[in-house]
């Protein structure tokens, strides 16, 4: 453990940049990097099924979870993840039932999540600034426990999306054919939904509930405009996610802007650039 701590300190003291001098930036950079990698890893399967807004729905439910944490005086991160997982399973089961019903049911989950959160926040007497922390993220107040949680969860997400990628691809590409291939469709759909929910729980700390879905979807949406295969989109999405989250954090340090919003704006910038590049290439 001491060797690890020595390595950690050595790494940061060797870093030539000004922002490397601050402990809070060390933790923030690690959290941003982990989220930047894991959010697109699971987000690609949402984009592939054209369910980009599902992450938003899960995020809304996570807000009720955060509020429940304040209300019952438990750890908000833990209650948020529990609520997000339950919400994700509920959304997945509703989706399975068919489109029209599922659409309305999703709306109920969306608004129920925000209203429930606001209600519990109010009842528990949580201050507005605390509420804003969760809505827009609070990367600079990340603690050691958050980092460990983010590390464990990111590793799990990367392991799942790497080892089960062929099945997750098949299920997201064509549900019926996947079922005829003997793949347990519902189980795999729930694996994707739960993985997305847990990722959202951690990502929430970095960019906030309102922007969480952007971290899952935008890097993939940007990269897929110039890639030709699923695997290259996956790897490109991870690299872009890492770049915009670390780059956004560093930028926000120098221009004194909120990191979460800066990161998401960076991802949108990448999306616009990729669109332009794809269009230029189509002309040539």
């Amino acid at each position, binding site marked *: 453990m001491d060797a690890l701590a020595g390595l950690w300190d050595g790494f940061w003291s060797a870093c030539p940049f000004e922002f490397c001098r601050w402990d809070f930036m060390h933790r923030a950079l690690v959290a941003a990097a982990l989220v930047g990698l894991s959010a697109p890893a699971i987000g*690609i399967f949402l*984009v*592939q*099924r*054209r369910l*980009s807004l599902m992450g938003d729905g899960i995020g809304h439910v996570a807000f009720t979870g955060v509020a429940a944490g304040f209300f019952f005086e438990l750890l908000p991160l833990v209650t948020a993840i529990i609520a997000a997982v339950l919400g994700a399973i509920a959304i997945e089961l509703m989706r399975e039932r068919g489109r029209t019903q599922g659409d309305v049911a999703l709306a109920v989950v969306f608004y129920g999540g925000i209203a429930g959160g606001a209600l519990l926040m109010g009842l528990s007497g949580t201050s507005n600034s605390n509420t804003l922390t969760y809505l827009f993220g609070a990367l600079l107040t990340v603690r050691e426990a958050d980092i460990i949680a983010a590390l464990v969860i990111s590793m799990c997400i990367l392991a799942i999306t790497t*080892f*089960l990628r*062929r*099945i997750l*691809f*098949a299920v*997201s*590409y*064509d549900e*019926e*054919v*996947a*079922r*005829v*291939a*003997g*793949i347990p469709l519902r189980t795999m759909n729930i694996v994707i939904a739960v993985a997305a929910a847990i990722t959202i729980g951690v990502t929430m700390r970095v960019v906030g509930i309102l922007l969480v879905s952007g971290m899952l979807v935008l890097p*993939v949406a940007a990269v*897929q405009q110039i*890639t*030709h*295969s*699923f*695997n290259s*989109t996956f790897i490109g999405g991870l690299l872009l996610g890492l770049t915009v989250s670390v780059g956004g954090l560093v930028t926000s340090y120098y221009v004194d802007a909120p990191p979460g919003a800066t990161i998401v704006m960076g991802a949108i910038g990448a999306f616009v650039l990729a669109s332009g590049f794809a269009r230029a290439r189509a002309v040539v």
Partner: protein
Amino acid sequence: MTTPQFHLSGGRVTFGSTVALDGVHFHLDPGEFVVLLGANASGKTTLVKTLLGLIPLSKGRLELFGTPSNRFRDWGRVGYVPQRATAASGVPASVLEVVLSGRLARSRKWGPHSKADAQAALTALDQVDMSDHHKKPVETLSGGQQQRVLIARALAGEPDVLVLDEPVSGVDLEHQESFAATLRDLNSHGRSVLLVAHALGVIEPLVGRAVVLTAGKITYDGKPLRDLHDSHVHHHPHSVEPAPRFSHPAGRSR
């Protein structure tokens, strides 16, 4: 006696209060080439999805390769080409990636694909004359080419039976002919084919048996006869018709 690959007896399927299939007896024997015909909403796709276990029976008994459907696990023996307007999805996928996803029933489910998987996928692409395109993103291909990729995906699992739901809808005549040649080749290697179609068209010479569905019931099951009017089917929907005509206006069924 050979064991039928699909054997449905007394099949009934309902969606809410709508009866989609009623009293349907259907079997497919090894090596057969069967075409399933019928008007829009006659239950063709419903029957196919029921045979594949995608739609539950409310009554009746279904066996696959002699095994009751609820205990059937050998899905690698069945290749399915669904009715689909496009092979594109939300994220780009290369032709090879799509075809490889058809290998899952035959290979291990986790980790990267094996060399044997890649070989089988390339062989399947070769069978539909698409191996030159394996690195291209599927969404850049023409409709007919995308269709062939989806057939290759079904073939990658090396199935004993190939089930295709309206594979030539929206494909031009020239490609329909090359598609018919592909099917002939596949069928001549002992693989059975069950094909849903709106009309016999170019595949007519290949078909060994035609089954006609009318309003959820089988109204004809026998040799594919020409020159018979489908109006007969409409006039006598509950009797087994000797003489359906196999040309219908183009359109899609559910």
